[in-house]
Structures are given as C-alpha cells and as structure tokens.
C-alpha cells in the first residue's frame, strides 16, 4: 500500500506508505485508482514544509504530534520493523488523526498534507539512519583513535557527497547509482519474522 515518490532535496526514490485506518489507501502506482489525486510525481520536488495550514497554537501542536507519530512510523519501517510500524499506524496515529478531525472538522489534516508529511518524515528517517551507519563505526573507534591518532587519520570514513538532482529530463548516472546502492543497503537489513 503506498506510492513511490522522489524527495525534492536529494532525488531519492521514497515509498510513501499510508495508515490502513482513516487515510487514503491504494496500491502502488496505478494498479487501482487512488481515492485522492497523487501529489507526488517521480522526478519532481515536493514541498518539505507540510505543517502550514493553521496558525492556532493548539492546532499547530496537534499537527506536530501527528508529524512525530508519522516520523516514528517511518523510522520503524526504515529499521525493518514493519509489523510495529503498522501497529503504530493503525492504532495511535489513526486515533490522533481521528481526534484532530473530530475537533477541527473533517477537512482538517487533508490526505494531501498527510502524504507530504510521510514524504518528509521518510526522508528524515532514511537520512538519520544513513548518518548513523556512518557515525557509529567512527564513534566506536574513538578510544583506539585517541591512542593511535596517525592510524585513525590514515583511514578516513568517506562521506558521500550530497546527491544531486538529475538535470531536467536526463537522469545522471551517479544519481541512479546512489538510488541503487541505497536500495541494496536497505535490502541487506534484516527483516523481522513477522513482516509480510
């Protein structure tokens, strides 16, 4: 259940998933007509600031709460905890959205806004994990590095340069390879036994 999208900042392909309860549902791409029009298009940027529909402090805080829950869902997915992600999505998140709409009207937190939130948070979760993959080996190497400083300098951990968006209409090979390598990394992560 979900859409494939490209994050505006990095040109990465992101699968956007939706909670089972209370949100738009539909299989990937056009195998069935989505209930709401898709807001993401492969290769096009997506507005990253999705929390902008209301200025009321309570409303803003509630939206932030929803965003935090979505971030947790995305992080669980990135970590391969699919079952836990779905549980959170169908339970706490669905309730938060329901309560928000009950309080602020059925048009509040529209599906398009939720999709944008998913795109943003999925990217954040992916970036956070990628950064963690790079930093953890460095941090765990610190005590040794302090003792043998020259050795640590000799083995730098390469930081991949920022992913560039392909030029209009012509995908650049390094960007395509970045996407491939990211997918490979993801595939190598162990999946939980309960995942389906």
């Amino acid at each position, binding site marked *: 259940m979900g859409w*494939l999208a*490209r994050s505006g900042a990095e*040109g990465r*392909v992101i*699968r956007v998933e939706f909670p089972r309860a209370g949100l738009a549902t539909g299989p*990937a*791409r*056009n*195998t069935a007509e989505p209930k709401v029009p*898709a807001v993401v*298009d*492969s*290769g096009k940027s997506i507005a990253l600031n999705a929390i902008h529909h209301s200025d009321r402090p309570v409303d803003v805080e509630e939206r932030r709460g929803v965003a935090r829950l979505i971030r947790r869902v995305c992080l669980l997915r990135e970590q391969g905890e699919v079952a836990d992600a779905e549980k959170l999505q169908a339970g706490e998140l669905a309730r938060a959205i329901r309560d928000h709409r009950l309080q602020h009207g059925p048009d509040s937190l529209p599906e398009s806004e939720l999709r944008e939130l998913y795109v943003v948070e999925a990217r954040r979760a992916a970036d956070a994990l990628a950064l963690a993959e790079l930093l953890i080996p460095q941090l765990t190497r610190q005590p040794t590095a302090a003792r043998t400083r020259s050795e640590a300098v000799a083995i730098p951990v*390469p930081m*991949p*340069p920022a992913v560039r968006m*392909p030029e209009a*209409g*012509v*995908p*650049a*090979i*390094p*960007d*395509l*390879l*970045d*996407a*491939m*390598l990211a*997918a490979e990394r993801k*595939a*190598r992560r162990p999946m939980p036994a309960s995942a389906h």
Partner: protein
Amino acid sequence: MTTATTIEKKPLTATPNVERPAEAAPARRPADKKRVLVGFDLGTNASCVLAGPADGRDIAVSKVIPTVVGYAREGLVDGIIANNATTLIGDEALQHRLQLRMVAPLEDGIIAHAAAARDFIRRVRVVIDPSGTAEIRAVIGVPANAGNTAREDIRTGAAGVFDRVLLIPEPFLAALGFRDDTRLGQANYVDPVTNSLFIDIGGGTSDLCLIQGFFPTPEDQVSLAFAGDAIDKLIEDDLQRTYPNNGLSRATVRQIKEEHSYVGPIRKPIDVKVLIGGKSHTLELGEVIGRACNQLLDRIYPALTGLIARAPSDSVAQLLQNIVITGGGSRIRGIDTVLQQRLADEGYESPKVRVAGPEYKRFVAVGALKAARGAREDQWQHLLA
C-alpha cells in the same frame, strides 16, 4: 572470431585444474597503476566485455566471448593444445572441445560453478590487461532481481581479479547502452532511461525492467528463468520423444533454433537437415520450434503487462511507444510484431515494440562501461581477495 585464451603450462605433479592465478601482478602502489574501466556482461552463454580508459570514450577492448571454460583432459598428448594449455575459455575452448572437459560457469544467469566462473573471469582479465598491472574497475551486469547469494557469488568470483566492482541489473544497463547520448535533449528523442520497458531475453533468464528516470525498484523488474536455454531444452525433448537416441547435441539444437526460431501462428514446413547416426535426414520442425518459442512469449506477456500496470498512468502512453527487446531472444522472428499485436488486441493504446538490432550482444556491456565512467569514487565497491 573472438577468442580469449590464456596459455598455461601443465604442472608436473599438481592436479590439472587446481591452478594459481595466471597473472601475478608485481606489487605496485595504487597511484602508479594505470586504471582501466570495464563493462562486463557476464552472460549464461555469451559474455561481452568492453574496456577503456577512465577518461574519454575510447574502447580499447571489445569482445564477445562464449561463456565456457575447458579443462584439459588427463593424458592428453603433448602439443595437441598450443603450448600445452590446461585451461581455455571461449571460442578457443570450443575448438578443442574433444580434448577438454567443458564447464559452463553460469546457469539461468547466475554462477553455478564457482571455480569455473573464477577461471573465466580471471582469463577475461588477461584479455583486458595482458600485463596484469592495471587497476581494473568493472561494472558487471546481473539478472534483474538477482538475489544476494547470486550477487555474492559474482563478487567472490571477481575478488582478486578486479580491483573494484559495481553490480547492476542487466536490463537497466541495456537501456543505458541503448541510449543514444548524442540525441539527448532533442525534442523528438525519448531517452530510454527516462521512460521505457526493456525485455532482455538471454540464455538463462528473460529480464523485464520498467525504467522511468530513476533506478528501478525490485518491483519494477521481473526475471523469468525461461529463456533461450529453456527453448533449446523443449526442442531437444520434443525431438527426443519423436526421434529417440537421435544423438543431436544441445549445441546442434541451439543452432537449429537460432536459424529457424519464430513466434506466432505455426509455420509449416520448416525442413531442417540433420545428421543422425552418420546419415543425413530432413526433419520437419515447424511445429516443434513454434511451440517452444511461443512458450517464451506466453511467459513474457503477463510479466510485461504487469509492469505496464505499475507505470504511472500519465506515463503509459509514451511508455507503450518505447518497449525494446534485446538479448539473443530478440532474434526470434516475429517476437516484436506478435507481442505488439497481442498488446493491441488487448486494447493497449498504439503499442510499439521493437528489437534492439544487430548490436544486441553489446548493449549491456556498453551500458556497463557508461556506468563505470559515470560512477563516483565512493560508489565503487572494494573486493576482498
């Protein structure tokens, strides 16, 4: 004829097939080494290798090599094989098949005999870099959706032979190779990497891939373990049923298929002259060949429509204009027109299916070399020998 051979002296006492690497490069600092980039289509029946310097577009090596390794049989008379070589690959091995134990390193697109695969790759390296001193970085094609084990087998086979590698799905490389870089940006040119559906019919697998400007996800690719070899087997079994003990080798059957293959309505007669028991016979094989080849079509079609259904609806019209068949299977007569007709009959809007053309053997390797030249330093994967 393209041939790749490494000459090796028979060891006096060692087991013939247990050999040290043919090329022991002298120790040099990496900075001293000449860097050679390689596009390598490691195919089940034939492999294509292109190599050139990192800068520019020059291609120094371009070879299609049958993916076969021959090991000298015990007790071979001296001088039967030039320089008493113990291991040959490609056409050279095929020429000496009577004196060699022939091993096909790959089956169904993946490595089935690790030692033979390693020997093959090692000798391919000699073709690329006879001096054995260059730093070799290779982009190697793998079947769509090749699993981790299959990928790891390739890495293991290449470890100690190539310095760095990147494994990329073959249909994607085919699209990259098929792309006409000189026409990019022209209004009337649809970049196959931007919106196309590639069908790569090889010996072991038929790979389909939806390519829409970003790297295809596993869901965008389908790999069917039914391709040229499976057709050979069907024809062989059919002939064996009809003409038991006919003695026709798989190579002969493949030759018959390559000459007469077709899809669509059964064509008769297709008379084929063969030698059975030393005598010449003419067999009518129209139905046998047609039945076997149509099975390929019957398997590819649902995979094709499944991938079309995955494409965003506003991209499908253009996608239907850009369905490309490549690999050895693209030579099956009528495969483009029959597939196109089947799509049209089912209501797809003005589909256009075309075959990649006579250069089909090279597209994956061309794409691989382009990828090698485009890859950033941090994207290459190191191999531990």
